[in-house]
């Protein structure tokens, strides 16, 4: 039985990681083929760093992901504090409104936002769809996810602590920053990371709301698939995968470190 469960475990991991492994191996292929490995080479990495179109959209994607995650985290955290203090029907209503965009198909969100933006752009001269509309749309779809990851932390928070801090003479704002924020910080970080990754790999919403000037990385990669796609994409995906991996390891190590510290205290 134990052997079976272990095999099952390995199978799951194989399904999850085999495609990524193949992609990484083929990013070092000296040939353009997707089926035949001709030897080790870094030529696709070199080609990648010479491809201005890919690099530009990578930069744009990272910028939009970062900005939208920061802004959505700010707005989302404040919103969850507000929702947390609500009671009864009002709270339920707000939560429902928050959950609709999460369950809504991306395409509906994308088209409805595009229609709104097109309305503005055609009414007011001098406006144009581009980076601004892209950023707004990303912030919009990120906020509910931040709220969903911060709210549970607030629920677990002892409401008396905040009052205790004030009783001990701390004014409300510093009390909030020094007492409440550290307690829900895990949730805020989770929300930020989630917003960042969701924004980075979003295709549909970016496609419809980027106008003619701001093309994100997923849209660029998609446009390359009609022709025999270049292993440059493998190289790029490998780099992204490694970067995310390193980030996760660092975050986990830090968390373990924190836990040890707490145990020592």
């Amino acid at each position, binding site marked *: 039985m134990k052997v079976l469960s272990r095999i099952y475990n390995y199978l799951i991991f194989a399904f999850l990681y085999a495609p990524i492994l193949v992609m990484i191996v083929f990013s070092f292929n000296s040939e353009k083929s997707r089926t035949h490995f001709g030897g080790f080479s870094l030529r696709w990495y070199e080609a990648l760093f010479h491809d201005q179109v890919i690099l530009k959209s990578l930069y744009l994607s990272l910028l939009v992901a970062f900005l939208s995650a920061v802004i959505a985290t700010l707005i989302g955290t404040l919103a969850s504090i507000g929702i947390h203090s609500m009671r009864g029907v009002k709270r339920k209503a707000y939560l429902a409104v928050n959950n609709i965009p999460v369950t809504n198909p991306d395409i509906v969100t994308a088209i409805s936002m595009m229609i709104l933006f097109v309305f503005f752009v055609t009414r007011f001269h001098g406006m144009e769809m581009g980076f601004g509309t892209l950023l707004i749309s990303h912030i919009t779809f990120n906020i509910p996810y931040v709220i969903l990851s911060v709210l549970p932390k607030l629920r677990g928070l002892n409401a008396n602590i905040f009052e205790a801090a004030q009783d001990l003479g701390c004014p409300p704002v510093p009390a909030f920053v020094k007492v409440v924020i550290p307690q829900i910080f895990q949730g805020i970080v989770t929300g930020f990371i989630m917003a960042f990754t969701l924004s980075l790999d979003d295709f549909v919403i970016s496609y419809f709301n*980027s106008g003619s000037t701001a093309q994100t990385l997923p849209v660029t990669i998609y446009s*390359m698939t009609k*022709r*025999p796609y270049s292993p440059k994409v493998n190289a790029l995906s490998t780099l992204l995968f490694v970067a995310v991996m390193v980030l996760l390891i660092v975050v986990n190590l830090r968390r373990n470190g924190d836990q040890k510290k707490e145990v020592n205290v």
Partner: protein
Amino acid sequence: MKKLFSVLLAVCVVAGIVSLAGCGNSGRVTINVYNWGEYIDESVLSDFEAETGIRVNYTTYASNEEMYAKVASGAASYDVVVPSDYMISKMIEEGLLAELDYNNIPNYRYIGEDYKSLEFDPDNRYTVPYTWGTTVLIYNKTMVDPADVADQSWDLLWNEKYANQILMFDNPRDAFGIALKKLGYSMNTQNRDEWEQAAQELKKQKPLVQAYVMDQIFDKMGSGEAAIAPYYAGDALIIQQDNPDIDYYLPKEGANFFVDCMCVMKNSEHKTEAEQFINFMCQTDVAVKTADVIGYATPHTAAKEALDPELTSNPVVYADAATLANTEVFLNLTPEIGKLQSELWTNIKKD
């Protein structure tokens, strides 16, 4: 009252951010160029910027339909686009393309006469050809009996000997084009009966087809997983580099002749600069770079001479005028025929 005020405020904030995006780049003129993915040597973009001081905002798409959807949605404004033949006729009909001032595009004189005055732009008012090619039939020499390719016909795709080794286009236009040509009809026929007959042919072919694919053809033909497939001439060369057993021919019944052209959008605010860009792309050294990267045939006469003679003497990729006489460009189908085509296609694919 307070509520109304806060709604108004929210609207103002949205409007403010949207307008902020519009005035990011003052001073230098920026043109928006929308081209197929992997369809340019990117270094020429910075060359153009350095030479003219015009900034190029370069974005890419994967299909004519995707480009059209974006252009027609009103959500984006482009200056230069690169549609294919049938999409050009559709966009001209809908008034989306601007008439070009060819005085601003002196390098247009390099474009070969064979690629001008084509049916989608008979008076040469809207287009400057960028690349061209034909569909060809690709096969694996080790898997196909030489006797079966001797007559150079589309019939090979219907040869029962190669059941489950045949690939077919996964888009109705190309698939029906082949079936119509096989029957000796025009690819742009308005005759419903001929479309029905073509559908019968495709139904007959279906049991023999291993898969309906587009770019997976590169893998399947390259690795020998399939023996026969129709695709574009320039891409046949790429597969051949991967697998030397690959050969190809231009079927005798005729094939699709496609031309991708540079065009300027009617709502372009920088038409002169857009024409300047098109002119730059037709400079001989730039056209050579472009042709090198894309691998499709160039309509640029001077660039063709500068390319590797082994490539330009290839009788399939650079088919001569006599061979091309037998080929046809796709024209925009009338709505009724377009609807019939998609009905028949769904019907073929579903059972």
